[in-house]
């Protein structure tokens, strides 16, 4: 059952050093505030899981939170590289990180398997690519009816899944609309689920296209207005595209990056 708590409490109670943690949100509803709280609490050796690491994981990797990364696309969408991710992979700074690399279809299906209580998922994927040579969580599987060989990927069941959503009611039921991404799958695949929300309301009025995740599969709800900035929340605020472009320059340089984190994450309790 859901407990309502402040974000620092929610993170302190759920995210331990060495945990596998998925902060999801497919370009929409990226839980920046929760990630920043993990950085502030100094968590280390995390296995970070996310289809599109985006600026948030660039920041977490750059601050040394990550030991390992499971992902499918590590770029700054429409802009270019994630320089902190590249620095860790290419130069081991601030520490080397291990990569477990998939395609989007593979990652999405790994979440589906996790949410479904299955050990693996089946897809037509990775055909002819070099990915299976480097990623040992890709295996062939044969259809018992047709003999066709397809691809299996194992379920992902993060220790902690963290998502941002528009709002929750007082019972902890969570409502999401716009691009829904893999929010439900992560909420259901994770052993513990934390949801940050823009607001808590007494009743979740239906919104076209909205889904509701029942509170009884959610561990903690933390009211965190602006918790997805500089990403966006459909119906609340827009994506800060200017910042996404500025990140290119901020993140290129190790010192400038650290100064920025100092100023915007450490000295402030609110997300940039």
């Amino acid at each position, binding site marked *: 059952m859901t407990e309502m708590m402040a974000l620092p409490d929610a993170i302190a109670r759920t995210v331990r050093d060495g945990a596998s943690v998925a902060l999801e949100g497919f370009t*929409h509803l990226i839980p920046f505030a929760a990630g920043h709280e993990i950085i502030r609490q100094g968590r280390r050796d995390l296995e970070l899981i996310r289809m599109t690491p985006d600026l948030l994981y660039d920041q977490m990797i750059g601050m040394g939170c990550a030991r390992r990364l499971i992902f*499918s696309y590590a770029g700054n*969408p429409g802009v270019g590289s994630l320089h902190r991710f*590249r620095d860790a992979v290419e130069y081991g700074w601030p520490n080397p990180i291990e990569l477990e690399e*998939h*395609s989007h279809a593979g990652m999405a299906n790994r979440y589906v398997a996790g949410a479904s209580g299955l050990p693996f998922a089946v*897809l037509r994927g990775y055909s002819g690519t*070099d*990915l299976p040579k480097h990623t040992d969580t890709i295996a062939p599987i044969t259809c018992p009816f047709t003999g066709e060989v397809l691809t299996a990927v194992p379920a992902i069941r993060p220790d902690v899944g963290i998502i941002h959503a528009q709002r929750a009611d007082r019972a902890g039921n969570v409502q999401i609309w716009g*691009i829904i991404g893999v929010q439900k799958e992560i909420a259901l695949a994770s052993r513990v689920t934390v949801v940050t929300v823009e607001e808590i309301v007494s009743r979740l009025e239906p919104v076209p296209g909205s889904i509701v995740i029942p509170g009884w599969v959610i561990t903690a709800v933390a009211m965190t207005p602006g918790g997805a900035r500089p990403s966006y929340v459909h119906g609340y605020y827009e994506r800060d595209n200017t910042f996404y472009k500025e990140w290119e320059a901020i993140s290129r340089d190790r010192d400038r990056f650290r100064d920025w984190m100092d100023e915007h994450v450490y000295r402030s309790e609110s997300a940039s």
Partner: protein
Amino acid sequence: MARTPPVTYTRDEMMTVAAARELRPGMRCFVGVGPPSLAANLARVTHAPTIVLIYESGTIGAKPLHLPLSIGDGELAETADAVVSVPEIFNYWIQPGRIDLGFLGAAQIDRYGNINTTVIGSYDQPKVRLPGAGGAPEIATSAKEVMVIVKQSRRTFVERLDFVTSVRYLTAGTAHSPASQDGRSITVVTDLGILRAGLRTHQLTATELHPGVTLAQMQAVTGWPLTAADGLEEISPPTREELHALRHLMAASREPA
């Protein structure tokens, strides 16, 4: 808007216009951000208003007024016929081959249309770590047609990929083979012209050149011995209408890609 017709155009504009012309009305196009989104939306506002834009963020039939910087831009959801989850877009819409044309990006491309967006150098000690696969491996094998829009250079058009991120034509004997690959094409639109594979051969061949470009120019920036198709054609320059629509789209974008 300009009152006088445009008289000049850039190579980038020619590239985008040439790509847009490839799209036919009603086509279901899987679109990423940047040049593909620009070309697909140009087609949509010019000759192919019924084109269906599908983004991997789960928006089907999006009709954005502004070009999205991110494939998850809110306007995509607001203007879509349907918004579905990310697992659904891959499992129900891409995997079964419902996409007529999928756009792919490329850091390296070889003569077979295989693409690298993963690493330059070795995987374990990369010289440049690139973003990785995203949706490409499954788009590459499932879409009826594939289009790559990329500037031509020897760094990009290579003899041998450093890493195979996606494969258009699976070699015989590969077990992971989809049902049929007959008649599947790949079209590579560059700043110099168009290369195609899949009609008679699985090797990319120069089929069209932009106005004023020679085959020798294109061969000089291709890392394999590039041949031309019989009847190599010159592409007609952008019309006033095309340029006008393209520049309007760029100007109307919140954030030009």
